[in-house]
């Protein structure tokens, strides 16, 4: 079986300008921050990012990497709003496709199933459709005749996710309480990269925690602490102090360069 181990910089070397990149995790939870840092150090730009957004989105906004964001929310969980995301929105610096968070799942699932769309009720009557005129509705061909949102497939060029354990072939395991949507991100993408706390030869724990199999992964990066400062339980919780420093610096142009250098270093 193939050995898919590589470095974070090698992963980023396979990401091209203008690509659509899906980022796993949720808010400030189990984000592939080591891979995001590698993106920040690279020259890659003009990205469309799909994310249940947290500081991954804020940092990529700060570095001017995002042309368009597809999102249901951006939050740091214990801090309501990400200051960098707020700034780029309030200055009109990025395009957005803002969705209901269930629509993000439906779009990823449509892509994963190679379907053009999936019907979903979420979005009807709200301003999701006002600001996303490209999203159409579809009418049930059955007797109910119900009109539903036809959520288009969110096809990804690249998926970046972080899990607790992986083997060198791309099988990977979450050990925390929630898998989030990392399997869907991988299934929706052409190129799939997982970073992990530890590369192992054998998995311990229930087989139900083996979220990714090797069909779903093209590269494995061993990155201990690679979700920090977001949480990666049970290996570690969120570094709330570092997150507060991030949010404070993000809201203060004087302090940002110092924080950013230290964070990337």
């Amino acid at each position, binding site marked *: 079986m193939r050995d898919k181990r590589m470095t974070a910089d090698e992963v980023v070397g396979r990401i091209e300008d203008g690509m659509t990149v899906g980022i796993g995790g949720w808010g400030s939870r189990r984000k592939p921050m080591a891979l995001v840092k590698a993106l920040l150090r690279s020259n890659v730009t003009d990205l469309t990012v799909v994310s249940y957004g947290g500081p991954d989105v804020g940092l990529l906004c700060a570095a001017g990497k995002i042309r368009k964001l597809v999102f249901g929310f951006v939050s740091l969980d214990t801090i309501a709003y990400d200051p960098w995301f707020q700034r780029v929105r*309030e200055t009109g610096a990025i395009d957005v496709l803002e969705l*209901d968070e269930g629509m993000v799942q439906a779009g990823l699932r449509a892509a994963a199933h190679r379907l053009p769309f999936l019907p979903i009720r979420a979005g*009807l009557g709200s301003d999701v459709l006002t600001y996303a005129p490209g999203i159409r509705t579809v009418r049930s061909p059955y007797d109910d005749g119900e009109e539903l949102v036809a959520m288009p497939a969110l096809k990804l060029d690249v998926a970046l996710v972080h899990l607790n354990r992986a083997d060198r072939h791309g099988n990977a395991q979450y050990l925390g309480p929630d898998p989030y949507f990392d399997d869907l991100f991988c299934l929706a993408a052409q190129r799939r990269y997982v970073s992990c706390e530890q590369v192992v030869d054998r998995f311990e724990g229930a087989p139900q925690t083996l979220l990714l199999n090797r069909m779903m992964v093209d590269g494995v990066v061993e990155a201990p602490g690679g979700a920090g400062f977001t949480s990666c339980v049970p290996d570690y919780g969120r570094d709330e102090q570092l997150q507060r420093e991030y949010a404070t610096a993000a809201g203060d142009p004087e302090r940002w360069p110092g924080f950013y250098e230290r964070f990337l270093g």
Partner: protein
Amino acid sequence: MSDVTRAEVCVAACADLFAGAGETLASPMGLIPSLGARLARLTGEPDLLISDGEAFLLTPESTVEGWLPYRRVFDVVAHGRRHVVMGANQVDRFGNQNISAIGDHARPTRQLLGFRGAPGNTVNHRTSYWVPRHGPRVFVERVDVVSGVGYDHAAGPFHDVHRVVTNLAVLDFATPDHSMRLVSVHPGVSVDEVRRQTSFPLAADDVTETRLPTDGELELIRTRLDPDAKREREVR
């Protein structure tokens, strides 16, 4: 029991949101609605399901009784056995809610959370709102961005915006055109004060006074659910 606080009245009003809910997932956002949901489960609604806010369903004794990661929350939303109590940066006369952005969506004056689950919640199952500071900037004639769907938008067979509980009052939409109505004012609050703090005309016939928590409820709130009185910081 004496000296009932405004926060305690709000907790009981939030508990009353779940009357008749039965074996349904209660999804309260924020401390006061969470205390309300847990109070309801300890009193009239023992069959409510309540999560830890992350991935587990917890019993009143805080033991795990189920697994509910986000992907399965979306399944419950679509299935419909859920009553969410969301926050709101803006709510309008017909129950539209905004947590996305203030101003023009293309270039907001203030970026907020995003749509989150509000569009899906409001078209799939019962939804209520909790507003800890009732004022004219929250209760607006028209929300800037419709995140949660109100009664003046076609919203399908399951749309059900139930009530709005605030630090001043309880409101609902039980009028002929589903515009907002004042149901009760909390003890010490006048109808005029609620009207002054609301930017649109409010139907206000048969307004009652919001009930006080019972002695048994106060005991539960003060000794079991919130012994550190964190509720007093959310509502003064």
